[in-house]
């Protein structure tokens, strides 16, 4: 295998390499693994793409992302070579025009790609989907795949907060976020299946999420009451999805397995669950101060499209914009919303793994 990336001589001492990486702006502040030829080649062995294949061009600086350069960043992040196809799938998905990387890599918002993984790869690759799946479980896949994508956006795309990225706060997910759906505990078809993939495929869905929004309940016995409150919670007044076009954006609702069972007892069909959530994901127009109401009226956000409920502002135009994903631990009591940037549509791509015998 011929690598063509520029070779750089660096200290072998890991602490010295960390210091150098900080000085060169190669990373996110945390220690990196040196991308030696052995490390990069091991990653490249897990894709059929040639190293010089241009997978995509990454904004905001439109850096050309060859597979070798992506593998270099994946090796730095500590990606298990077998997980490299998921990194590639994530980058394919987020460079789809409808994901709007052009806007999302430069916005003042905190938004960042949040990777949701489906398929058999979750367990062998350490994609956390149970307790602590959004932080704390420590699976190698969860901690490195998202980080590899983040490093690619930084080192290839040139996304740097305070410079090319105008993000005001950033968010913890900007280190990298990757979690799985606990498909085996979901009473519904998986996210990937709902998006048209078969159950045996390893699929990465990239959601432009602004952060993790925790929701807790210990009071409600009737699942409909709990879902009502979840709907009201995700329709918080300063949600991005109230700022612009009602047709755009999705909010992911991560539901723990215990609640999923309760909800499925009432809504065996997930589209009915989504409809129920959508039906209640609104706020009264008079919640907003008077000048805001005029703006919402002007933007066509008042009532539903057919003119019904002119006293309400709905979070989304359609039920499918509220996306339940079953994950998290067995402790119940909690859900997490991943609010949307708004002007982005989640995108999915299949990870093209290389059979072990071929490596």
């Amino acid at each position, binding site marked *: 295998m011929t690598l063509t990336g520029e070779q750089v001589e660096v200290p072998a001492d890991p602490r010295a390499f960390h210091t150098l990486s900080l000085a060169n702006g190669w990373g996110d502040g945390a220690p990196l693994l040196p991308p030696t030829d052995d490390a990069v080649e091991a990653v490249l062995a897990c894709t059929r793409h040639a190293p010089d294949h241009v997978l995509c061009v990454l904004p905001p600086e439109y850096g050309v992302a060859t597979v070798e350069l992506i593998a270099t960043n994946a090796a730095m992040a500590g990606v298990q070579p077998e997980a490299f196809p998921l990194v590639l799938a994530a980058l394919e998905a987020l460079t789809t025009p409808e994901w709007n990387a052009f806007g999302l890599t430069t916005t003042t918002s905190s938004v960042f790609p949040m990777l949701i993984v489906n398929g058999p790869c979750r367990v062998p690759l350490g994609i956390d989907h149970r307790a602590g799946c959004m932080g704390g479980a420590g699976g190698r896949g969860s901690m490195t795949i998202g980080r590899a994508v983040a490093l690619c956006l930084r080192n290839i795309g040139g996304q740097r907060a305070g410079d090319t990225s105008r993000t005001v706060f950033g968010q913890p997910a900007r280190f990298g976020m990757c979690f799985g759906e606990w498909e085996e505990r979901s009473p519904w078809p998986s996210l990937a299946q709902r998006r048209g993939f078969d159950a045996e495929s390893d699929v990465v869905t990239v959601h432009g999420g602004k952060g993790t929004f925790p929701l807790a309940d210990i009071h409600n016995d009737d699942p409909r009451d709990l879902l009502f409150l979840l709907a009201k919670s995700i329709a918080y007044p300063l949600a991005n999805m109230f700022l612009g076009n009602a047709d755009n954006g999705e909010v992911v609702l991560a539901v723990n397995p215990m609640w999923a069972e309760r909800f499925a007892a009432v809504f065996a069909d997930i589209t009915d669950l989504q409809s129920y959530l959508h039906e209640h994901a609104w706020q009264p127009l008079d919640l907003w101060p008077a000048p805001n109401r005029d703006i919402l009226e002007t933007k066509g956000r008042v009532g539903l499209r057919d003119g019904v409920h002119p006293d309400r502002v709905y979070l989304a135009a359609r039920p499918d914009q509220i996306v339940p994903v079953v994950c998290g631990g*067995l402790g119940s009591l909690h859900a997490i919303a991943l609010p949307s940037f708004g002007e982005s549509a989640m995108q999915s791509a299949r990870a093209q793994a290389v059979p072990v015998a071929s490596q």
Partner: protein
Amino acid sequence: MTFDPDAVAAAVEEVRRIIRADGGDLVLVDADPSTLRISLAVALDDVTCAECGLPPDQLEETIAAAIARRVRGEFELVVADPRR
């Protein structure tokens, strides 16, 4: 986190001895690492006094404690007990 079906079986066997002493039995129906669900069934066919021995809630706690000593991490215990 480890979920070893053999460790679950060993824990169940430990509690099974207690129930067998009262004439009953405890059957491990399933221990699924993918769902973390452990399903057991209490058999009381040969028990002369069904209300003797450990009450259902206490039995479930005993089973859970025995499993927790051998299995790290979360699991969901489902016990089918004819007395419920």
